[in-house]
């Protein structure tokens, strides 16, 4: 069931999502969905490139693959929390959808995870729910 939370269009346009995924087909698919839902996004192929992006741009949420060359999802998330001191939601995307993997993701600093192959409704719900809490409610509290 699709979440009933709605992010207003004018706010959606200000939201920026970073997708970190080494698989070319995976990148294409996530990009297609985010565009369809009306979000701005950047895509990169590994953790090292993600860190470079994070130093240059402000993001509201990260969709993070786990097994990647150069720097994997766990190492990248730890770096984001411990060195960059960023608190934005990081959602893991993994083929290993086990309880053990979920725990590993949480320990690395990720807030949630989604199993591959991606189910559109699941990804939409996770993305919108986290953005709603971190972006929409934060803005509402300011005014």
């Amino acid at each position: 069931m699709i979440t009933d939370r709605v992010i207003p269009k004018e706010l959606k346009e200000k939201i920026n999502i970073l997708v970190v995924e080494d698989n070319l087909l995976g990148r294409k698919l996530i990009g297609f969905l985010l565009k369809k839902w009306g979000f701005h996004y950047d895509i990169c192929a590994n953790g090292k490139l993600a860190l470079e992006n994070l130093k240059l741009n402000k993001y509201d949420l990260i969709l993070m693959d786990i097994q990647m060359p150069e720097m994997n999802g766990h190492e990248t998330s730890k770096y984001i929390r411990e060195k960059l001191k960023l608190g934005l939601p990081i959602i893991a995307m993994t083929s290993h959808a086990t309880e053990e993997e979920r725990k590993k993701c949480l320990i690395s600093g990720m807030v949630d995870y989604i199993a591959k192959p991606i189910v559109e409704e699941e990804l939409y719900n996770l993305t919108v729910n986290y953005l709603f809490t971190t972006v929409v409610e934060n803005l509402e509290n300011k005014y």
Partner: protein
Amino acid sequence: MEAKTENIQKTTDLSYLIELSAGNKVFVKEMVALFLSENPEEIKALAKGIAEKNYKTIKTVAHKLRSTIPFIGLDKHIEKEVVEIESMASESVDIKEIEIRFSKIKSVCEKAYFELSPVSSVI
């Protein structure tokens, strides 16, 4: 009769992509084209890893394949073998066990390639 039925059965299944894109033909065609360019390279890399008994490469490529195959429905045919190879490579098991599974993966991927090549230009 059964053999004949089996011969015309398709290995690939694009319903995941079609459903997810609400029938967006351009998107499906782009995904198929990406598969056709990526998959033979992955199979080649896996064969090389096996020939060189390079378990690290085998594990990495098997994982990559595991992410790729569901897009065109090949997980129904070879997910078990791909997962097994990934796990066997972690434990550096007898390479012959990996070769047996690789043989099936290669054959299914080749069949998929020939099925999708015309599709990619038609859709």
